[in-house]
């Protein structure tokens, strides 16, 4: 049985090695093709356009973090609300006056949180 098992094991080995090289080889070829298409596509889309970046370049520091901290610093120094908080796009001034902005914020938040069921 050991011999029989060993023979079968060898068969599986041949099959397995072939398959794993075959699959990863095909994947590699596919990736080369995708890469080639991508470069053609980028060239075509606009000669002047920059190539698509991996991820938005994180310039310096997270803008939101800066904003929060800026606001906090100003709040600390002056003990009053800074004039411009770049944290969040505010609704128009009329909304501030209407006094239901907090509602809107929550509702909008709802949207951003889980799409729009």
């Amino acid at each position, binding site marked *: 049985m050991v011999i029989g098992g060993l023979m079968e094991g060898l068969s599986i080995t041949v099959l397995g090695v072939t398959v794993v090289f075959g699959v990863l080889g095909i994947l590699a070829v596919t990736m080369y093709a995708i890469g080639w298409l991508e470069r053609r596509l980028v060239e075509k889309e606009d000669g002047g356009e920059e190539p698509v970046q991996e991820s938005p370049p994180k310039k310096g520091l997270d803008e939101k973090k800066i904003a929060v901290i800026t606001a906090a610093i100003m709040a600390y120094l002056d003990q009053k609300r800074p004039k411009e908080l770049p944290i969040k796009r505010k609704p128009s001034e*009329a909304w501030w006056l209407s006094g239901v902005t907090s509602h809107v914020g929550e*509702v909008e938040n*709802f949207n951003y949180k889980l799409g*729009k069921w």
Partner: protein
Amino acid sequence: MGIEQAIIDFFEHMGLVNLTIGNIIMILVGLTLVYLAIRYKMEPLLLLPIGISAVLVNLPLSHLANWPLAPQLPPEVQDNIFATLSYLNQQYGPPGIFDLIYYLLIRTEVVPLLIFFGLGAMTDFGPMIADPKTALLGAAAQIGVFVAMLAALVLGFDLTEAASIGIIGGADGPTTIYLTTKLAPHILSATAVAAYSYMSLVPLIQPPVIKALTTPEERRIRMEQLRPVSKREKIIFPIASMIIIGLLVPSAAPLIGMLMIGNLFRESGVVERLSKAAQEELMNIVTIFLGLGIGSTMRAESFLTAKTLIILGLGIVAFASATAGGVLFGKLMMKLSGGRINPMIGAAGVSAVPMSARVVQRLASEEDPGNFILMHAMGPNVAGVIGTAVVAGVFLSALG
């Protein structure tokens, strides 16, 4: 086993040689959903998982989903989920992971109910409490549900199917899934995909309907500011509505109950840990399983039928007539109130929270940039969630 035999076996069980035309079409459908989700951000939280798992289950022999969606069950097994599981295992082999998700989490209604729980924790019913009469607009928009149901009946669907198709017009994904699972599971993938796709298309579907039914003067109507709502009112609301609806329409109690428990967690202010968990940890995990589970029902044999196309068509009818129902009732209320209600807010009775309310606001701003009716439209908007759950309850009690 010789090496030749092994190779022959391997090739015979290769997915590629077992691929059907149906599989290919379904893979393309899945990829389309993925594309729409990524490129146009159409409900990505659901359409991306749905699309990609539709691709995956249509790769032949992949054993991710081995069980049929609407199996013929012997009578002694029917209606017994535990006996059903054992029977399916006996007949179709051990469950794949998507079978477990579908049969244990979606068929048992656990997932749609937990989503409602999380939605409750995310929803602010304030605008509706501030102006309760707008709740009626959330009722009016349900007319679309019945229009689509009757249309489906005319087109030859049976009653359970027609009800499941009609509910698409409620624009509430989880309610649609809840009802279809109970009444007509074999069309679940079609109704779920229709519900979520059209929700994303609200900004396209609603404006022409609204414009056709209202005059620019009507769209320009400004509404007076909403009164502030106290914390106490917000706490009492979920409790009161749970009890009232539970006593009147018990079959809607699971949906409304979970929604209102979530909302009470939110508004009580004393269980922030749990409210956050309902909105985030639990919601995210459940959303993943919902998307994967629904996507796994998109199989060639059940999805690629003429029915699916008709269902997708009826979905648009449902959305459009729901919008019309809301707007027309809005016009009635405008008349009765002496012109103090902007009829457009009726269109927000199509839940799709808060997208349809924003569509209404955009149309108002187009006519008059200083006209702010978003919050007034939120009232019908959240009422529409309740309304659709009530309608689902009526369907369940009549047909379930």
